[in-house]
């Protein structure tokens, strides 16, 4: 492409002695000088960073030729930056960095601790055989069946949970134990185990509760005495006392029955210690139905809501667990039967396995929802599984007669009847046009080994599987119920009336002068008439 023909301009200029720069570089010696000057320029140290361009280019090219990345020209700037970074770090290396103890390593320590088999475990095993083996559930087997439906945690995590459950059983006096599920939270998640303790062991909670009640009653009595003394001392006018008597508290259900049938232990991650959740009270369930809050992951976090939730996050979690269990724990129909044949009414809470259960084929379990039944009693509107009349308890109170008057005034609460225990799930109501449950088989390609899977639409995240005699329920989700409409928070109650209005305090218009004169005349006439007839007057107010 250069000028080749003698008539083209610039022909011959590339010969030495004829280039356009001849006057600038007269001889080869000078070219060497120019190169030296250029190199000296490149070797000039930067005043800011102490690097020089020559060394930098040398390092850059060395790195590129060593690593030989593809399409180097596209990332050359990044490589240059990296080389400069490396320089910087090396120079500051007189002090050694302390090894960062990442939280990763701590967590790994905890997980490793799970694998350690205790020395005393053999003794434990002997004890267990005497008391009746607590059944450690086969978490991996359940995880396998749920995995066929695409539900479940990673295998590693399932195994860690398996080991943590084993630790839990060794520590607590547990009769039966089950992996209930996982509830997600904002900062941390909850792993939940459903257990039944040996009889008599759960009594610690009750005793502690009773002691609290006694001390509270004593405190109230003391307060009452103080108030009376105060009244005697100061007879000044006090603001009117509130006549509001809160409705009597619905007592919570005993441990081992109804909503408190099982005890729940939670932990944030497998490897962390298990914490026992307190039993749930009906007030907490009633309030939990009205609010919808995310869990933060800390059990002592307050639940800020309206209506104010009576408790902290541990109570809210327990209430949601109770609702989810009551709503979504199902088993194949006929697997459980009532313990006492006569107790098919609401009173029955005891069920036992039916030895004559014939598992229906998977196809039938998928197609007909009548082949599944709830085995947890539903929760009534009161917040309990078994209805109780809260006014009956108030007989024990030593209050004045006001209580009895109130009882007569307030309406009798309607006794609530819920569905009996082993109801078929085909009777669950759907919401609008969404059925309460969705059933499907895990695979259509290999029907002989498929598993029947149930998904709840009312509590998204609740699943159940059944195949042959094996079945289980599990929950993975955020812990909230599904509602087709948006959640509307409860409105604040109307402002309380200050005082009852009656004729004694209603304002009336003052009588005018004429009215007063007329009144006086009428009074005199009436007086005159009274002497005659001796009747009582009637005062007329205008």
């Amino acid at each position, binding site marked *: 492409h250069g000028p080749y023909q003698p008539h083209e301009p610039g022909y011959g200029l590339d010969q030495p002695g004829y280039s356009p720069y001849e006057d600038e570089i007269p001889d080869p010696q000078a070219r060497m000088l120019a190169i030296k000057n250029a190199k000296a320029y490149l070797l000039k140290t930067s005043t800011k960073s102490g690097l020089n361009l020559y060394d930098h280019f040398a390092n850059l090219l060395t790195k590129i030729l060593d690593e030989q990345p593809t399409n180097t020209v596209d990332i050359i700037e990044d490589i240059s930056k*990296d080389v400069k970074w490396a320089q910087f770090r090396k120079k500051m290396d007189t002090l050694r960095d302390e090894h960062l103890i*990442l939280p990763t390593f701590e967590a790994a320590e905890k997980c490793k601790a799970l694998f350690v088999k205790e020395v005393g475990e053999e003794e434990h095993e002997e004890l267990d055989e005497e008391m009746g083996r607590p059944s450690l559930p086969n978490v991996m087997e359940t995880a396998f069946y749920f995995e066929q439906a695409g539900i479940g*945690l990673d295998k590693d*995590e399932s195994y860690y949970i398996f080991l943590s459950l084993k630790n839990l059983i060794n520590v607590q006096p547990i009769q039966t134990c089950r992996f209930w599920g*996982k509830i*997600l939270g904002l900062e941390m*998640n909850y792993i939940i185990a459903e257990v039944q303790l040996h009889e008599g062991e759960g009594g610690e909670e009750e005793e502690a509760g009773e002691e609290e009640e006694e001390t509270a009653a004593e405190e109230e009595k003391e307060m009452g005495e103080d108030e009376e003394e105060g009244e005697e001392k100061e007879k000044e006018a006090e603001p009117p006392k509130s006549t509001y008597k809160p409705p009597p508290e619905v007592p919570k259900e005993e441990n081992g029955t109804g909503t408190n049938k099982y005890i729940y232990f939670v932990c944030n991650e497998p490897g962390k210690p298990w914490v026992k959740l307190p039993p749930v009270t009906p007030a907490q369930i009633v309030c939990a139905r009205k609010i919808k809050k995310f869990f933060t992951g800390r059990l002592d976090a307050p639940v800020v809501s309206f209506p104010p939730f009576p408790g902290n996050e541990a109570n809210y979690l327990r209430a949601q667990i109770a609702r989810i269990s009551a709503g979504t724990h199902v088993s194949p129909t006929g697997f459980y039967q009532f313990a006492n044949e006569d107790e098919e009414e609401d009173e029955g809470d005891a069920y036992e396995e039916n030895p004559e259960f014939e598992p229906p084929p998977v196809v039938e379990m998928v197609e007909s929802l009548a082949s599944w039944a709830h085995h947890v009693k539903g929760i009534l509107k009161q917040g309990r599984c078994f209805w109780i009349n809260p006014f009956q308890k108030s007989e024990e109170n030593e209050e004045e007669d006001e209580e009895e008057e109130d009882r007569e005034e307030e309406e009798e609460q309607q006794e609530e009847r819920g569905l009996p225990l082993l109801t078929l799930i085909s009777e669950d109501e759907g919401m609008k*046009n969404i059925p309460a449950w969705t059933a499907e088989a895990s695979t259509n390609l290999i029907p002989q080994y498929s598993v029947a899977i149930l998904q709840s639409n009312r509590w998204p995240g609740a699943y159940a599987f059944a195949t042959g005699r094996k079945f289980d329920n599990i929950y993975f989700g*955020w812990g909230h119920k599904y509602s087709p409409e948006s959640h509307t928070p409860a409105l604040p109650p109307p402002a309380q009336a200050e005082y009852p209005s009656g004729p004694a305090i209603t304002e009336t218009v003052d009588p005018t002068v004429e009215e007063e004169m007329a009144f006086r005349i009428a009074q005199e006439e009436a007086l005159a008439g009274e002497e005659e007839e001796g009747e009582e007057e009637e005062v007329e107010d205008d």
Partner: protein
Amino acid sequence: MEALSLPAALALVAGGGAGLSPERRAALGASLPLLQRDYRFERVWFWGCIQGLRGSYYIAEGLGPNRAAPRSRLYSLNCLDWSLLTPATKEMLALAEQLKGRFQGDPSFEYSLAEINAEAAAKLTESGREPVIKEEARLIATIEQIDREVGIVPRGAFVKTPLGSVHENRHFEGLSLLDAKKLSSYFHFTEPVNLKNKTLQEKADLDPSTDFLDSLEHDIPRGSWSIQLEKGGTVVVVRSLLWLGLTFYHVPMTKQFGYVYFGTGEKNLDLPFML
């Protein structure tokens, strides 16, 4: 999530309990490479699964040379046979926002507009079409909304070239553990909305090749993202609370990241009450 790293990625996302059965995984492993071959995509992402009442939709996205260009979306009911979805139009988006409730699981199901929004129904009948929306349109609109509102990538993972096209950053080594816990290290992978509203000081610190997207810091409402370290602190999992079911994972100091949606396809409008 990248189709090639699907098994490892699904293991990292499984903390929420949702995943795929072995049958579906195997089917995806076979059908996604075929998708790449047939449609000549450069990258294929498994977007996730929207659960309907009677069946689930499995969604895949295909990307061309410019990763920020509108992506082609495909859906399948069984992870084997994929159908291309048309791009979303504004009209579809507006109509789909009116629809509430679960997906039915049948792409030809028709929602009757007359019940929901009489005006829109009237408009449609005037223009000669029936006042119904097909579930397929709702699906397209939902996927578009989810991608726009909560599809996220780590900072530095993508670079914008001077010509305007976006590529993966081959020099991305992963976020450090400290950076990975901050909301400002993640960007929405969609057209930026409030990039220009930053102060001059902030703009001076930005690197225009990597900071060309909105970060999650200023999302409204505050607190609509939950960042957690899972698996003993080795994976950072970011979950969206606005669209429950969207899970993003990233292993710090490595190039692994991705997001997937396993859920019912409904926006969580109760979010302000729940925080």
